[in-house]
Structures are given as structure tokens and as C-alpha cells.
């Protein structure tokens, strides 16, 4: 059995290592015999694998989300630290004072968050998060595909192949049409 390591209890262990240990544990289930009288276990093995991937990806989503929110909160705190400690500079005694303070506050927040959004680290984090959500969607598709097949319905991949072929055919027709137009215009010029 895997050591019961809680990621939250022992946050010194890198997240990737925790995932790796988890995957190693589940690999034992992939070694169930799949041939001859045991061939029926292949489907079970696929279901187990999909569920395992679902658990891993939801952990990744939680991890990336947590990092994302940490970055946002940190930037917000840093921006607030830049505000004057007392109100001597912004006494708020008139409408102009309020507008001046608002402009300063929004400008400070804008500068801090723009620096964050322009950083490569944050860009990579957003990409990881969006990638994780995309993988989640892909795993759900993998789970639903066998059920679609049992209902004699085409899967998304089947339809994708058709759409790609249709688009390729449209391009070929376009190229043929343009070639014919060129030939016909040349014929017209010769006839003149």
C-alpha cells in the first residue's frame, strides 16, 4: 500500500512526486491478465485507468488553481502595501480628493497586476491551468466514448475525422475551380 502521505500535511514533498507515487500504486491494476478468458477485464482496466487519470487531473487543477490564487492575492497585497499608511496625502475631504485617491489606487493596482500578467512565470501558470482543464475535458470524453459506441453513436474523434476530410475536399474543389477560371479566362483572351 502507498504510504498515506497527505500533500497538505507534508508540503515539503513536491506535488509531482506525490502524483508519481499515486500513479505507481495504481499501475498494479494494469497488470491484470487481459487475454483469453480474462479478456473481459480489458474494459474494466480502461475504466480504472480513466478514473485514475480523472483523479490525477482534478488534483492538478486544484494545485494550479491554488498557485494561481496565491499569485493574485500576493500581487493584491503588494499593491496595497504601496498605498500611503495614513491619509495625510489623501484626506478625502472633497469630491476632487476622492477622485484623486481613486485614480491613485486604480493606477497602483493596474501597475502591479500588469507586471504580474507580463511575467513569463504567470503566463506558464495560466497555460498549465488551461491545459489541465483541457485534459479534464479529454478524459471525460474518453469515459463517455464506450457508452456512445454501445449506443451506436459516433464519437467526437469519428466526427473530427469527417470534418477534416470535408475541409480538405473543399480546398481541393476551390483549387480546381480557380484553375478552371484561369484556363477559361486565357481561352477568352485567345478567342478575342
Amino acid at each position, binding site marked *: 500500500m502507498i504510504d498515506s502521505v497527505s500533500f497538505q500535511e507534508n508540503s515539503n514533498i513536491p506535488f509531482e512526486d506525490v502524483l508519481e507515487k499515486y500513479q505507481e500504486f495504481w499501475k498494479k491494476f494494469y497488470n491484470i491478465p487481459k487475454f483469453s478468458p480474462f479478456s473481459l477485464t480489458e474494459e474494466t482496466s480502461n475504466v480504472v485507468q480513466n478514473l485514475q487519470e480523472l483523479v490525477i487531473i482534478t488534483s492538478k487543477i486544484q494545485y494550479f488553481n491554488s498557485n494561481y490564487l496565491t499569485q493574485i492575492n500576493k500581487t493584491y497585497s503588494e499593491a496595497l502595501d504601496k498605498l500611503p499608511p495614513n491619509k495625510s496625502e489623501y484626506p478625502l*475631504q472633497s469630491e476632487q480628493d476622492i477622485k484623486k485617491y481613486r485614480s491613485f489606487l486604480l*493606477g497602483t493596482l*493596474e501597475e502591479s497586476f500588469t507586471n504580474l500578467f507580463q*511575467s*513569463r512565470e504567470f*503566463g506558464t501558470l*495560466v497555460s498549465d491551468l488551461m491545459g489541465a482543464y483541457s485534459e479534464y475535458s479529454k478524459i471525460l470524453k474518453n469515459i463517455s466514448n464506450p457508452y456512445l459506441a454501445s449506443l451506436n453513436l459516433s464519437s467526437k474523434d469519428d466526427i473530427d475525422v469527417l*470534418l477534416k476530410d470535408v*475541409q480538405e475536399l473543399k480546398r481541393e474543389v*476551390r483549387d480546381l475551380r480557380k484553375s478552371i477560371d484561369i484556363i477559361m479566362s486565357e481561352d477568352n483572351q485567345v478567342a478575342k
Partner: protein
Amino acid sequence: MKIIKLQNNTTTNPPNKEKYPNVSISIDKYNHDLSEKLDKFTKLYQNPKDIDVGSTEHQIVKETNNYRLLHYKPIFKRPIKTPILVVYALINRSYILDLQGDKSWIKNLLFQGYDVYLIDWKPPTLNDKYINFDDYVNDFIDDCVNLIINQGSLDKITLHGYCMGATMSVMYTTLHQRKIKNLVTLAPVIDTSKDLTVIGNFGRTLDVDKIINSLGNMPPQLLRTCFSALKPFKQGMNKYFTLVEHIDDKKFVQNFLRIEKWLYDVPPITGEVFKQWIKDIYQDNLLAKNQLKLGSKVIDLSKIYIPLLNIVADEDHLVSPEGSAALNKLVSSSDNRLMRFPTGHVGLIASSYSQLNVLPRMGKWLFSRSDK
């Protein structure tokens, strides 16, 4: 809505008259006015009236599943012979170019005597996910150009693009230059190595294959999320404060609502186009390196020799101005002009500034290079 009373309530602690001798509006009055304005703001957003956009008279010359070709009714009986085909971007909708009467890019060109056509892209569906730049440039734009040339018995037209539409116009001109008399680009995305914008940063780090393989097309929700990261406070939040302050100004409110309608009217982008846009153009910078391929053909910007006017917004936070300006150094045109204006990406086309400063100069440049 609950208003939090500000400090220095005048009933208990009057403002410092020595320091602020000219203060005529008390905080109490400001609170009261603000409360009334916020009520109006809430009612406006709960029940907005119809917002009219794209009202310049036009007819639909051609309509397919992917686009409509619009022909605007010329103001003059004999417009300038060389017509303009405006190629809008695939991001948001084309009516930003005809947002309202006094700030309409299209209307201004009509009043300058031009004959104007516009390609209005239709939102793609999941069936369109394999449509790529080759289809947009060599099929849709080419069809529109051929139609205008045949209808008017012309040899050439002026091609005029904005943002991604300008990039596509540049690609088209490289491959079909014999049909184009002049090329006018507004904030084109060309050299992304110089791009320090937030969009550029997100584009360079995005694993686009993973996202598109699972989603098909780039959905509007994700696009809106990316755009909301651009100036989130100065433009995202501050504009609502400004709206509340001007809530009684009907003209201001209508203008504001038109821009708001456009900002949130985001169609999806086809998967293949989005992949090429991010991987080939933003990440690998293939367009500036003359290595971008559409089908089997390479886009070589140095092959452009026709007159080029490149208009760039110096305060553009969506498309790097330096990246746009690079186009002038990459083409071979001897008649090659760069105009830079101190305005933003949308301000370049839909503001009073553009009506007074950008369009007259563009019109003057184009007039001497068009057949009359």
C-alpha cells in the same frame, strides 16, 4: 445599494476651510448624488434599451456560411474608381468600424468619396474547426476581391485591414498582388519578437495544441478572460466609475453602451486558425521571418512592392506598436509610409481622435494613389 459613509461627515466634522477654502460640495451631497446615480446605473444595466450599431446603409453583395460581403451605399454619384475592401479581424465583430454616426470609420471613408466594401466574418461553428488561414486568405478574401473586380470591371482594388484583418491582408497581398493597387494596414500583427504586451506573453507560453484538441474552437469565454487581463483596473473598473459620474449624459451613456456591446460580443475562433495564430505567428514569429506557410505557399513579405500605408497606435496595449511598425522594413515597396498616432488600439478606429486625425491623413495618402 448601501453607500459607505466617507470620513469627515460635515455634520459632525466640517472640512478644513483653511486648507480647502473653495470646497463647495460637501461629502454628504456627494454621497447623496452618488447614491442617485448608482440607482440609475443599476436600472440601466437591468433593463438596457436596444443599442443600434452598424447603421450606415449597405447591401449584402454575397453571403456564405462563413462571411457576408457588405457594400456601403456611396455618398457621391461618382465615387473614387478604386474601391476599398476592408478586411476586419476574426476577434470581436466588425461593426466597431461603423459604431455610431459621428465615429464611423466606414462613413468617414464614404464622405471622402470612396467606394467601400467590408468583409463581415460570421461566427464559426464546431463544423468549421479545420478552417485555417489558407481558407480565409485564399478562399474567402480572394472570392470577395474577385467579385468586386468583376462587378466593377476593374483591374485592382485597395485592400485595407485592421488588426488580424491587416495581417491577413498582408498575407493576401503577398500571394495575389496583381489584384491589389494599394495596401493600407491598421495595427497589423507582424513581428512578435518585439511584443511585450500581456497578450504576447500569454501567446508565447500557451500550450495551444492541448486546448484546441480538447475544445475544437477557441471559445469566447476563454478569449474574454484573456482580454479582461488587459488594463483590468484603468479600463475594466474605472470606466464604470466614469459611467456613473456621467449617467445623466444620454450621449455619453449611448456611446458607452455601444462600446460595451462590442467588447463582449466575442465569437469563437476556429481551432486551426487559433493554432496557427499562436504557434506560427506568436511563438515562432514565422511571418516576420518569411517562413509562414499557407497551404503549400510561403508568405514572403519582401515580395510586396505595391504602395503601403501602415498606421500604428503608439499606446496600443493589444498589438505591440513596434511589432506593427516592423512591416515597413520587411516589404520591398518604394512607396512605403508609416504613420504613428498617440492613441490606443480601439481609439485608432472608433474615436473622435481618429475622425479628426487618422482618417483625413489616410484619405489624403490614398487619394493620390487611386484611380478617379
